């Protein structure tokens, strides 16, 4: 366009060829990269930026077709007026999806700071899911109500990350159709069963799931949730708030589970049906539950025979008056070789140690005896 960049370009070329002889004459560093590798770099850019690269040169004009991931973030749109910003963002996503309507990409991420018409967001989600993408990540600022049907029919989806959704699940729907899903992460998402579900139980099937992660996810309209997850390896459940009354029993049928993490407040009852668990990491915060309830919760979790256990109960009274019998009732930890106790009173230590014949390492942190 103008002459100054060429000067700078020339200078740079010179510098490069001096520093690295093997890079033949310091030519275009991307000319020896295959198209798909450049497409890979472009997939890490906000899609708005990735589209700009088509102006770089004739080769780059079509390199955009090698993009494997689209990233839409409305923070990339700088306008002082919120209305213009939202309008230009909507326009952009619509056009970009039209631009890549042939698919060919594998992941889509949508991060929205502003509030949009729910029909608009649902339309985008449905368009990208129809393109047989493997990874979908949607971060919303305001809750979006959707039916589970929107996602559960995607045979190709391998990774699903949702933030701030309210998902209604029909108890009759066959959920094994998410047959490729390996990673499921749900943040601040409410899952509710429709009212036709009289048995108040829900069974979800994820035949390929390896990783299940939730943060402040709540269930309603249901008393018991069963997850049939034969290949599941990692479970991570976090509750950072306690703002609800409902109580659900979640049971994982996961014979290959290796890692279990629970942190935060005690809300749902978690039951694990697994053959062997390599490590369990449990950190509980203080909340309004009685010590009895917390004791119950812990002892239920501890019946999973982990090989390594980190237990942290950040509740002082638990040390002093904790429900002793819950610890003594638990089955022997035949497999336990590593035990770390934080804030857990030593009065239970002896009864725990008597039941851990394979224990090799014991770590005690801030134990008030």
């Amino acid at each position, binding site marked *: 366009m103008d002459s100054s960049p060429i000067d700078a370009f020339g200078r740079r070329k010179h510098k490069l060829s001096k520093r690295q002889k093997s*890079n033949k004459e310091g030519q275009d560093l991307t000319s*020896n990269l295959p198209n798909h590798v450049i497409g890979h770099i472009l997939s890490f850019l906000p899609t708005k930026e990735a589209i700009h690269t088509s102006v770089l040169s004739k080769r780059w004009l079509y390199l955009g077709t090698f993009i494997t991931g689209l990233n839409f973030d409305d923070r990339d749109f700088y306008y002082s007026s919120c209305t213009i910003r939202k309008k230009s963002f909507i326009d952009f996503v619509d056009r970009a999806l039209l631009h890549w309507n042939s698919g060919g990409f594998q992941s889509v991420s949508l991060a929205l700071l502003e509030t949009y018409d729910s029909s608009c967001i649902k339309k985008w989600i449905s368009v990208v899911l129809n393109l047989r993408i493997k990874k979908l990540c949607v971060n919303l600022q305001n809750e979006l109500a959707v039916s589970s049907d929107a996602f559960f029919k995607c045979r190709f989806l391998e990774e699903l990350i949702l933030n701030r959704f309210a998902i209604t699940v029909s108890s009759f729907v066959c959920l094994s159709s998410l047959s490729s899903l390996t990673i499921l992460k749900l943040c601040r998402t409410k899952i509710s069963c429709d009212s036709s579900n009289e048995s108040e139980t829900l069974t979800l099937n994820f035949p390929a799931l390896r990783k299940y992660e939730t943060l402040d996810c709540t269930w309603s309209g249901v008393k018991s949730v069963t997850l049939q997850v034969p290949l599941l390896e990692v479970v991570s459940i976090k509750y950072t708030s306690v703002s609800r009354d409902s109580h659900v029993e979640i049971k994982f049928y996961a014979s290959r589970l290796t890692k279990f993490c629970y942190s935060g407040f005690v809300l749902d009852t978690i039951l694990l049906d697994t053959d062997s668990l390599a490590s369990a990491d449990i950190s509980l915060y203080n909340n309004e539950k009685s010590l009895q309830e917390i004791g119950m919760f812990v002892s239920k979790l501890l019946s999973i025979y982990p090989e390594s256990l980190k237990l942290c109960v950040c509740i002082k009274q638990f040390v002093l008056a904790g429900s002793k019998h819950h610890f003594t009732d638990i089955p022997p930890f035949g497999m336990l070789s590593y035990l770390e106790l934080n804030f857990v009173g030593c009065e239970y230590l002896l009864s725990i140690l008597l039941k851990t014949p394979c224990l090799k390492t014991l770590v005690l942190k801030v134990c008030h005896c």
Partner: protein
Amino acid sequence: MAEEVSSQMNSLSISETNPSSSATISLVSGDDIVFKVEPTIAKEMETVQSFIDETDGKITTIPLPNISSHDLPYVIEYCEKSIAGKITKEFEAEFVKKLNNEEVKELFLAANYLNIKKLLDFLSQVIADRIANKSVEYVRRYFGIENDFTPEEEAKLREELAWTFTGVDPDDEDEN
């Protein structure tokens, strides 16, 4: 250098009956510097590992003509951290702080050549971050891309893409 390679190959072929799996791997940079690494490091580098596998582990000296002795230690450091499971956000931030734009690009080419998926993804993100919000001219200079559009063609293209050109940062001066 050539002698060193052949003598090592001879000694290895002698001990062929008892190939030691724990023998270190020698990586030879384009400027003939030998880096000895553990076999586990080589495993991270798919190109190297497939070379070793193809020769049934008999050859443990691998020439890497496309990679300089300046870049190879960075690659090895990243692989070591990766094996130890110590790739944290902090480590990556420190790692990238040490690198100027040219080095990032060279490492990217090295990671691509060696086929190290994690390093490639990480550097893709670094490059993406460094060209994000930059002008077309800046990105051309960054990659050393020659503009083969006529001014008319480029103007037309820019007009077509006008809907994407908002909020581009002013160009930085030399960032190295």
